[in-house]
């Protein structure tokens, strides 16, 4: 008998594809949240593989904060076209206007929290009963507690105390009308797994993941790109640096890292060496309080 041994990436992939198919099998109207960042890019690749030779049986949804990197948007549109999946874009800007929402103010004001309003409206508009997201448990300590099928009430709220036990590889997606399930197929992947997978699969990425020269504001230990969305104060130090992005979020609250990495191999080498976590290095919005992520999730954040 041949040796039936799978590499860890194959094991993670097999598990994620199983989850994707459970979503397609259990729900009427699922959607895949796609931002053009490396995690949701991985989700798209997994979805393609899960349903081959058929098409991805759900739309890609982008909740556009209006503060995106143009490179990510260009990439988003191109990938949607290539995969033949339907792309739905809903803008936070529109929600702000329609509902008279108050935006955060201050130096690195972010629309992260407001994103939840647009997401919930979009879920309601299309009647999505499941939203697949690219969150990983290694990202953040509140995420480490989240189930793969995370049930949200009609307000999109996550209640960690009411989580359903998740046993073996059995996922319970039964919900009542108005509720929805956030599904995280790559829960068990860590940052490096995603990079190794992107390398193995030869997946194309938005250019901001690779080194490029950019004007940045040096804010404490973070480098924030100069953009129309960031307020420049008198005492701000602006420098030109070779940077890349470790994660793709909003231009307002996602920091760049100094880097010379111009290939996936370079990136993997850099991540292997770094002693700072992905979120710690790049996400200014997580550092507001000890439970920033937990609190956002309780309010409907994905």
């Amino acid at each position, binding site marked *: *008998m041949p*040796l*039936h*041994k*799978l*590499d*860890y990436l*194959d*094991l993670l*992939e*097999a598990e994620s*594809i*199983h989850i994707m*198919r*459970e979503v*397609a*099998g259990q729900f009427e109207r699922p959607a895949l949240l796609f931002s053009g960042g490396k995690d949701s890019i991985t989700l798209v690749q997994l979805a393609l*593989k*899960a*349903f*081959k*030779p*058929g*098409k991805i049986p759900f739309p890609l949804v982008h909740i556009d904060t209006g503060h995106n990197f143009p490179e990510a948007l260009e990439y988003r549109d191109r990938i949607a076209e290539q995969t033949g999946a339907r792309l739905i874009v809903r803008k936070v800007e529109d929600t702000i206007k329609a509902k008279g929402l108050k935006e955060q103010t201050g130096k690195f004001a972010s629309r992260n929290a407001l994103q939840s309003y647009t997401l919930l409206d979009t879920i309601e508009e299309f009647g999505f009963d499941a939203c697949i997201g690219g969150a990983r*448990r*290694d990202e*953040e*300590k*509140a995420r*480490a*507690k989240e189930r793969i099928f995370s049930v949200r009430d009609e307000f999109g709220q996550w209640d*960690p*105390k009411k*989580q*359903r*036990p*998740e*046993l*073996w*590889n*059995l996922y*319970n997606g*039964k*919900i*009542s009308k108005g509720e929805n399930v956030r599904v995280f197929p790559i*829960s*068990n992947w*860590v940052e*490096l*797994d995603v990079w190794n997978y992107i390398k193995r699969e030869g997946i194309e990425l938005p250019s901001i993941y690779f080194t490029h020269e950019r004007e940045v504001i040096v804010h404490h230990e973070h480098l924030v790109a100069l953009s129309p969305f960031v307020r420049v104060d008198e005492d701000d130090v602006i420098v030109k640096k070779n940077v890349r992005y470790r994660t793709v979020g909003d231009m307002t609250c996602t920091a760049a890292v100094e880097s010379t990495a111009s290939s996936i191999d370079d990136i993997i080498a850099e991540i292997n060496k*770094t*002693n*700072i*976590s992905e979120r*710690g*290095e790049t996400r200014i919005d997580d550092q507001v309080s*000890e*439970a920033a992520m*937990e*609190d956002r999730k309780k309010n409907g954040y994905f």
Partner: protein
Amino acid sequence: MDLLRFITAGSVDDGKSTLIGRLLYDTDSIKVDQLETIQKQSKNKGEGEIDLALFTDGLRAEREQGITIDVAYKYFATDKRKFIIADAPGHIQYTRNMVTGASNSDLIIILIDARLGVIEQTRRHSIIASLLQLPHVVVTINKMDMVDYSEEVFNSIVEEYSKMAATLNIKDVTFIPISALKGDNIVNPSENTPWYTGDTLLHLLENVDVVSDINFSESRFPVQYVIRPQSEDLHDYRGYAGKVLSGTYKKGDAVTVLPDGIESVIEAVEVHGQEVEEAFAPQSAVIRLKDDIDINRGDVIVTKTAHPKVSQDIEATICWMDNKPLVAGNKYLLQVQSRRVRCVVKEINFKLDVNTLEKHENISEAALNDVVHVTIKTASPIVYDNYLSLRANGGAILIDETAHTTVAGCMLN
């Protein structure tokens, strides 16, 4: 490189968090900024030393109360293997969380405080490990530094535990004397225990054989989704997507589709759209059959190996996980793999005391965290295996029909 999933069990004072913290720390899995956050929080709480438990307790309520409420998953890797730790709370009221964490683990680390030896908690965790048929049990006898690294203490605990394990149907047990706090025998062999010649904990975790725990002789393939592109070039394509739970599937294999018992032959096996020689557990695959037959989500494709059971009358050991008690006669949904059917829990045959293994009969209700043996009648036949003989297809859950919550984990027999 492969993957090992394991769970740690022990009460808070046994040093479980310290052990996880040490494994993560010694394998460079805690980043500087995460350590700084923990240091800051430790200061806020007014503690002198870094509280490594803060790294594992991710929820506000957990940090406020200083207890672990729910299972968290932690990750680390060495050059040899990747690891997923299910960090489950050890409190008695959280049996369900331990069952949850243990259900997809290949190995359990049971911590014993060297000063206390085998206690009720040890027995409970071992009983759960045996109920869930975890293939490997590692008993770490912790706080060896507190008993002067005494070989006698270690040996007497090994003897005590072995006697107990013999009554529990626990197979592969390994004992390691450790100090999670000082790092003895965790990553490096300890000079303090020259009498111990076995593996360090990490060495064992890196080398324990996971593949041999997979059953390659009985083939189970539950259909999750039917792929029908119905495009011009793939007009007649019909592929059954699922995960190979056990066994192997090859082109030309004669198969039976259960529960209906329809027979056919495999025309092709595909993994990610590529035709392959064979698919094997635990791969996700697509199977195409020669005959155009009606197969739906929930059906199970099996080869001509020993077949699973197909029945509407089922016996099971279940762990009740809901605040609302289980009452004999109540109806639920039973989910086995991708098949979900209505069922009634006809009888609670007995309650299993997870401290003593005693059976209490004449039970009409089961409360949160109770482990009971039940008789279930399903509305239509389900395809399953005895959990003890084929773990991959012997687990099921009960779902509350109106609240939709998962109310029990079931080990079918």
